[in-house]
């Protein structure tokens, strides 16, 4: 190759590389865990959860060690002081919103007064039975006696006005409904603080303005929280956090720890492998070709998606590592086989094109995944592999000198790595039969174990089981007594009125169907439709009873010693139109924090019309019997959404299963047809596919032995292993068919070893996702490699070789 031609090739490659680097510098990376989920209903559900602030909510438990204090009271005082200070610190911090530490002082009387004003629109049909009793003579006698005693008691001075405004105690009927505002947590209110039963812990709620499923956001929030704890917590008070934050941090740190240890190990082993096998500094250029393709591939992916998920970036580059195989094959052929460069390039062109086609076919199929990060991963790997093949084709010939070729020309087989598949004929028939038998046993075992496998689409299996996080969650459950599963039932409306009406509908359903434990705003903030109806009932009730009731009331109250004008306020209220109650009227009430957590509004994306939507949330304790009821109810009304872990886990599992199974099937079919089309002989096709079948069988068998469970990572990497192992079959088969000097087998061995080192070390990772990834490659490639060397050549008939 002329110097000018070599310079031109390098200029093209470096030009593309530099352009790629330039555009990659502006890439926006996000590592939102939601990108791991399939599009559609499930992602919609999670977006709803995010919009309700539930994904980015922090539950902070402050606990006091009483041993640090002389008395229990002193410990509790320190605890409350810490809660107050923490609340003030977080409220002053721009990274947090909706910080709830306690209900405001005097909350009960303020709430009482607010609700009392709106009695006519809040009391519903069921309450009138009770009011009927209260307005009877016996009821009046009893209630007026209680009022008399209350006003004369030490509490009388403070309660006098309330009694004057509501002598029948109708507000108490509303206060009874506040039971539906209690959270599922087992707590008591002490001076407005959310205190545990043992009075050693207080609960603080806060919402992060940064997404907590994103590791950068999570790290910032953790830093801010640590500072806040440092400022606010007094001696003996400690804070524990549960929610998305600790999980995101634990996963991010576990991956970082694993990669910090395993990447250097893999790099050293790879360098050793290349050093031992190539014994040439040029080997590093061979290794660097796929990485030269990475920046332009990243730039192209960003061009399509706007930004790139960190997960897709990481795994995409790992997948791009497949491209090193092409460089190795090219380099070994050009440097170790005899003939002119043109002749050698012509010989290697066919297997390189075939292998590129099968590999890209796998990635093209992955583009149809429902999961955004899979699509990004596939785009990155696809563009990367194509560029890497192009780069390899351009630059590898320029680094192989004639002198080097002669020096490296093929040597007799001395080691396993330089085993020549053409030498299969030299294996004794016994060894050939042995290899074939083992392979058949593997296929049969894999085939039999496959139906036993269970796909677990629950993404929690890929969540790192961090001890500290688990301990904090256990502490939370013990302290706050959280039991069982919960569902979030959301009323959606184009305006607040509509959303509140839907929420009232939900409340009505929950009451009618005897749901015991639920939290709903509807009893104290029904929709306008319900309020209007309540007001109508209220008026009808009093119209039917007055003025007879007034006389009866006057007689009983005066008999108890009350003056004629004592309850003028009450009668004035009976005649007054209070108007409808809207959240704004409660904005300065003690219910404000609850309103903010349960009522939300947002604007839909411009593509969906950019409309405002309002959400009103209820939470319901569910079990296997009640969840289907809720789901059936939601199906009847498109404005009702049910979000439940149980439900969306099942949906995620189902969607991912469908997605992955379809992708695997499509990848399998594509590879089969491509191979069949390329080789057009059953025996050769079978030989090419033998490593693929072996890797699938081995992975199936391994998963069955280790618990019988497949997760998303197994299957995604399974697709990659199919793409890799079919290449082994292609190179070995081409080598066998053309009767060449056999560098293909050595190249396959080096490629397999590099894959085993590069990905296989991840089998030793602590993080479940990395471990699954590593183990899949280790087992799959571990089976495909020997089969490509010892079984595939044996499967190709002599006649086929002659024809070729």
């Amino acid at each position, binding site marked *: 190759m002329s110097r000018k031609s070599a310079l031109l090739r390098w200029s093209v490659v470096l030009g593309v590389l530099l352009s790629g680097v330039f555009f990659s510098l502006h890439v926006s990376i996000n590592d939102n865990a939601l990108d791991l989920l399939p599009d559609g209903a499930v992602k919609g559900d999670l977006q709803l959860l995010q919009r309700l602030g539930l994904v980015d909510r922090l539950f902070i438990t402050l606990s006091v060690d009483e041993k640090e204090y002389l008395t229990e*009271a002193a410990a509790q005082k320190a605890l409350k002081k810490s809660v107050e200070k923490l609340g003030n610190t977080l409220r002053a911090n721009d990274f947090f919103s909706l910080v709830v530490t306690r209900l405001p002082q005097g909350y*009960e009387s303020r709430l009482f007064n607010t609700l009392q004003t709106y009695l006519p629109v809040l009391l519903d049909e069921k309450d009138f039975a009770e009011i009927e009793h209260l307005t009877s003579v016996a009821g009046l006698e009893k209630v007026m006696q209680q009022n008399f005693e209350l006003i*004369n008691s030490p509490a009388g*001075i*403070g309660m*006098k006005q309330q009694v004057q405004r509501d002598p029948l105690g109708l507000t108490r009927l509303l206060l009874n409904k506040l039971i539906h505002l209690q959270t599922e947590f087992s707590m008591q209110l002490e001076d407005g603080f959310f205190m545990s039963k043992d009075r050693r812990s207080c609960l603080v709620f806060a919402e992060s303005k940064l997404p907590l499923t994103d590791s950068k956001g999570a790290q910032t929030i953790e830093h801010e929280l640590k500072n806040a704890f440092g400022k606010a917590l007094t001696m003996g008070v400690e804070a524990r956090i549960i929610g998305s934050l600790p999980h995101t941090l634990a996963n991010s740190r576990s991956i970082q720890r694993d990669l910090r240890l395993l990447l250097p190990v893999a790099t050293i082993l790879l360098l050793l492998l290349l050093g031992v096998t190539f014994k040439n500094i040029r080997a590093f250029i061979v290794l660097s070709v796929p990485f030269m393709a990475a920046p332009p591939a990243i730039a192209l992916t960003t061009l399509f998606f706007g930004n790139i998920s960190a997960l897709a970036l990481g795994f995409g580059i790992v997948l791009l590592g497949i491209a090193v195989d092409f460089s190795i094959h090219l380099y070994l052929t050009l440097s170790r086989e005899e003939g002119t460069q043109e002749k050698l390039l012509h010989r290697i062109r066919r297997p390189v094109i075939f292998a590129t086609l099968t590999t890209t076919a796998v990635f093209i199929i992955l583009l149809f995944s429902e999961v955004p990060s899979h699509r990004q991963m596939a785009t990155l790997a696809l563009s990367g592999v194509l560029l890497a093949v192009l780069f390899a084709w351009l630059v590898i010939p320029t680094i192989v000198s004639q002198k080097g070729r002669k020096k490296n020309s093929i040597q007799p087989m001395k080691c396993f790595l330089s085993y020549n598949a053409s030498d299969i004929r030299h294996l004794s028939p016994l060894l050939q039969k042995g290899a074939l038998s083992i392979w058949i046993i593997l296929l049969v075992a894999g085939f039999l174990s496959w139906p036993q496998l269970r796909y677990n689409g629950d993404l929690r299996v890929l969540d790192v089981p961090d001890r500290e996080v688990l301990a904090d969650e256990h502490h939370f459950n013990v302290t706050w007594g959280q039991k069982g599963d919960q569902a979030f039932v959301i009323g959606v409306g184009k305006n607040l009125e509509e959303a509140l009406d839907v929420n009232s509908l939900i409340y009505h359903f929950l009451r009618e169907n005897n749901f015991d434990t639920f939290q709903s705003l509807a009893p104290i903030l029904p929709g306008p439709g319900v309020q209007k109806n309540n007001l109508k009932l209220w008026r009808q009730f009093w119209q039917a009873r007055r003025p007879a009731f007034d006389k009866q009331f006057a007689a009983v109250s005066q008999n108890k010693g009350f003056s004629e004008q004592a309850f003028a306020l009450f009668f004035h209220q009976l005649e007054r139109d209070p108007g409808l109650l809207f959240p704004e009227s409660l904005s300065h009430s003690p219910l404000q924090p609850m309103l903010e957590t349960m009522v939300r509004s947002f604007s839909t994306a411009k593509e969906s019309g950019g409309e405002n939507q309002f959400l009103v949330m209820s939470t319901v304790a569910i079990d296997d019997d009640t969840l289907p009821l809720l789901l059936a109810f939601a199906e009847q009304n498109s404005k009702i959404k049910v979000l439940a872990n149980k439900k969306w886990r099942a949906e995620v599992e189902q969607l991912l299963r469908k997605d992955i199974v379809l992708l695997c099937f499509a990848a399998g079919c594509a590879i089969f047809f491509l191979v069949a089309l390329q080789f057009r002989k059953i025996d050769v096709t079978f030989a090419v596919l033998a490593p693929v079948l072996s890797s699938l069988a081995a992975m199936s068998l391994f998963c069955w032995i280790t618990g019988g469970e497949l997760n998303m990572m197994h299957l995604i990497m399974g697709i990659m292993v199919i793409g890799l192992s079919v290449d082994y079959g292609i190179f070995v088969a081409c080598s066998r068919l053309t009767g060449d000097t056999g560098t293909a087998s050595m190249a396959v061995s080096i490629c397999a070893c590099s894959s085993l080192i590069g990905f296989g070390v991840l089998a030793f990772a602590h993080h479940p996702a990395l471990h699954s990834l590593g183990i899949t490659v280790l087992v799959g490639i571990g089976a495909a490699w020997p089969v490509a060397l010892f079984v595939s050549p044996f499967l190709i008939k002599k006649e086929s070789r002659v024809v070729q």
Partner: protein
Amino acid sequence: MGMCCWPREILKYGKISGDVRMVKLLFPGKIFLLPALLLFSVLFFSKATASTKQNELENFLQEIQDSSDRVHSFTSGFTQEKNLSLFSNPVIFQGRLSIVRPDRLRWEFISPVPSVLILNGEQGLRCNDKAPAEKFKLSADPVMKMVAEQLWFWLGGDYKKLARHHRLEKRDPATLLITPEDQSTANYLETVAIVFDEKNLQPLQVEIREPGGDSTRISFHSSKINMKIPEKLFTQCVSDE
């Protein structure tokens, strides 16, 4: 105060030497300065009067505090008379009060409707003859917490603490007039006047005035101090006494 008498008042208190002629000497012909001087004098006078009253109040507070500090327990019969616009006539309740400082109090109505309210530290108990006894925690019951705070303020004997949260005034002969400074309390409570026994400085009467003119007067009688009070009075409603 009219202009006719202000110099005399000043001389009476002896805070400014000289008389009105002095004023003329100082400001001949400048009669327009008279209002300014008047203002100055009134301020000075008020300050002097306030200072005297403040001293008197502080002395009185110290005396009742000293007296209170010597009292470990207090038991008394009482009559509560409510004059409320809510009632056609004044309502009179008879009862008994027992206090063991610092945190035990039993407020018992004997007639016309028997009932008991017990505060024992953070815990509380209330009962009447129609319903079973009801326990409560002050921290979890804002209404009872407010009641307890008020009772301890008036009857707890910590008058220095009282001064931190209220405006205090001494009235003759031995009366402390308390006005809440906190607006939320002022909404339902205008003043509280505690009349002390001039001999032993123990409360004789508490009169609570509410905005709008309603009032409650509690008069104590047969008071005994530093008697041994059975513990069960603060743990159960029914007592043998």
